[in-house]
């Protein structure tokens, strides 16, 4: 989001000081940190001296929910003699700590959608108000395949501040002016990083770039641009046989962004809200007339893959997938985007 790109600067912060820094940030920002609960790590509001973890592989839910919440009231309205409308736009300053490179890439992909034609003020306002503190991956999950999409798990310049784990401290790479201002506000926490720490960080980062168990060649996805050829490919039929039609892959996807808008009314007041919807549900495309252009699992599962690998590419020039591996990990029937790409290209 932040386009100004001053020269990158490097600092160090001791791991033991992180909690105290968060406590200080808490006074000025709405803070979101990864928290482990019921064996699941997710971004949650940070409270003073609250729990957080920076030792995790990836959050269950992608951070898209902090910008496009699963349910969000857009405005409330009231009709007495006149109609009055009150818009609900989040204006508070926020920080997200511990966002992984794949997830921060997904936000830049979502930006394209929400900036397109009609600017989506609800999303963009939150993006502008939010400072991102990224965290490099040193130990990717077995499900990850970000490198297939040319995302570097050890480096991220799209976030304001990026942390690299150096065992007892983090190397703090500051990418934006906003990030620098934050560092300036809390000088007592940061020390200047030396050349050898920066090189050490690069060395630690490098193992993360290898050792992926799944993946594909990005060039292979070009076949999806030939829509007519791929549209009636037998693979869709095959996937539909076992797909359960649940919404796990779409809800956990860091780039899926389809939503539904509904009005809720009581007597003379009400609200309009939007909430996530999934192309995997029958009701997603069901029309008032009763006609459904995507009546079966086959059409719906095709839509998901074609949207990511073809339609999105022709509109925005990039694949709507960041290789975070969530769909792979949680799909109950092990439907795997890397395998789908493999099946189609290996013919």
């Amino acid at each position, binding site marked *: 989001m932040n386009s100004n790109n001053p020269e990158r600067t490097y600092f160090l912060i001791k791991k033991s000081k992180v909690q105290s820094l968060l406590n200080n940030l808490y006074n000025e920002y709405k803070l*979101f940190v990864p928290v482990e609960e019921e064996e699941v790590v997710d971004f949650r*509001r940070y409270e003073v001296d609250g729990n957080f973890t920076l030792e995790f592989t990836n959050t269950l839910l992608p951070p898209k929910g*902090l910008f496009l*919440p699963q349910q969000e009231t857009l405005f409330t309205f009231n009709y007495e003699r006149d109609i009055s409308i009150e818009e609900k736009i989040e204006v508070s300053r926020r920080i997200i700590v511990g966002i992984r490179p794949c997830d921060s890439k997904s936000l830049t992909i979502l930006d394209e959608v929400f900036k397109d034609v009609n600017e989506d003020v609800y999303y963009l306002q939150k993006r502008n108000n939010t400072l991102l503190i990224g965290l490099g991956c040193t130990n990717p999950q077995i499900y990850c395949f970000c490198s297939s999409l040319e995302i570097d798990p050890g480096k991220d310049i799209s976030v304001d501040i990026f942390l690299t784990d150096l065992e007892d401290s983090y190397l703090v790479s500051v990418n934006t002016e906003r990030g620098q201002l934050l560092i300036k506000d809390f000088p007592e926490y940061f020390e200047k990083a030396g050349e050898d720490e920066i090189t050490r960080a690069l060395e630690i980062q490098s193992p993360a770039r290898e050792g992926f168990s799944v993946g594909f060649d990005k060039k292979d996805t070009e076949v999806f641009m030939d829509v007519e050829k791929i549209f009636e490919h037998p693979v869709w039929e095959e996937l539909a046989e076992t797909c359960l039609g649940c919404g796990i892959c779409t809800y956990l996807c860091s780039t899926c962004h389809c939503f539904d808008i509904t009005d809720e009314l009581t007597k003379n007041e009400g609200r309009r809200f939007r909430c996530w919807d999934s192309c995997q549900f029958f009701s997603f495309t069901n029309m008032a007339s009763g006609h459904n252009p995507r009546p079966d699992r086959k059409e719906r599962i095709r839509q998901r893959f074609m949207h990511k690998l073809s339609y999105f590419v022709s509109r925005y020039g990039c694949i709507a997938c960041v290789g975070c591996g969530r769909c792979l990990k949680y799909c109950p029937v092990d439907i795997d985007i890397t395998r789908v790409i493999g099946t189609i290209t290996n013919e």
Partner: protein
Amino acid sequence: MEIVAFCCQWCSYAGADLAGTSRLKYPADIRIIKIPCSSRINPTFILKALSKGVDGVMVAGCHPGDCHYATGNYFTRRRLTILKRLLEFSGINPERLQLYWISAAEGGKFAESVRDMVSRLERLQDKPFPRNPGISL
């Protein structure tokens, strides 16, 4: 107090009518919803009402053996017995759900049942379902 009462149209609803025409007094805490038979009750009706924060749900049907559809209320009895256990397990006092057998001739029993329901609910120590549960960001 807010009580949702589902009354079968053949017996209990007529019983409520009779209570009205007989000018019997009963607490004004109930909202009656007419249903064709007590077995029309889907557990969702009850769960939905309770989840909206009402104090109790009252289901009223014909006496066992007197169902207009011969056997509907026997099925209701089985289902609600189990549903009460499920409510209890999920943290709702099962007293908040009651089933009464009220015939069309029993206007008095209808009024008595409403009084019974209200006094049961008044005795409860625990709270009904919270109005706006959930953790927001």
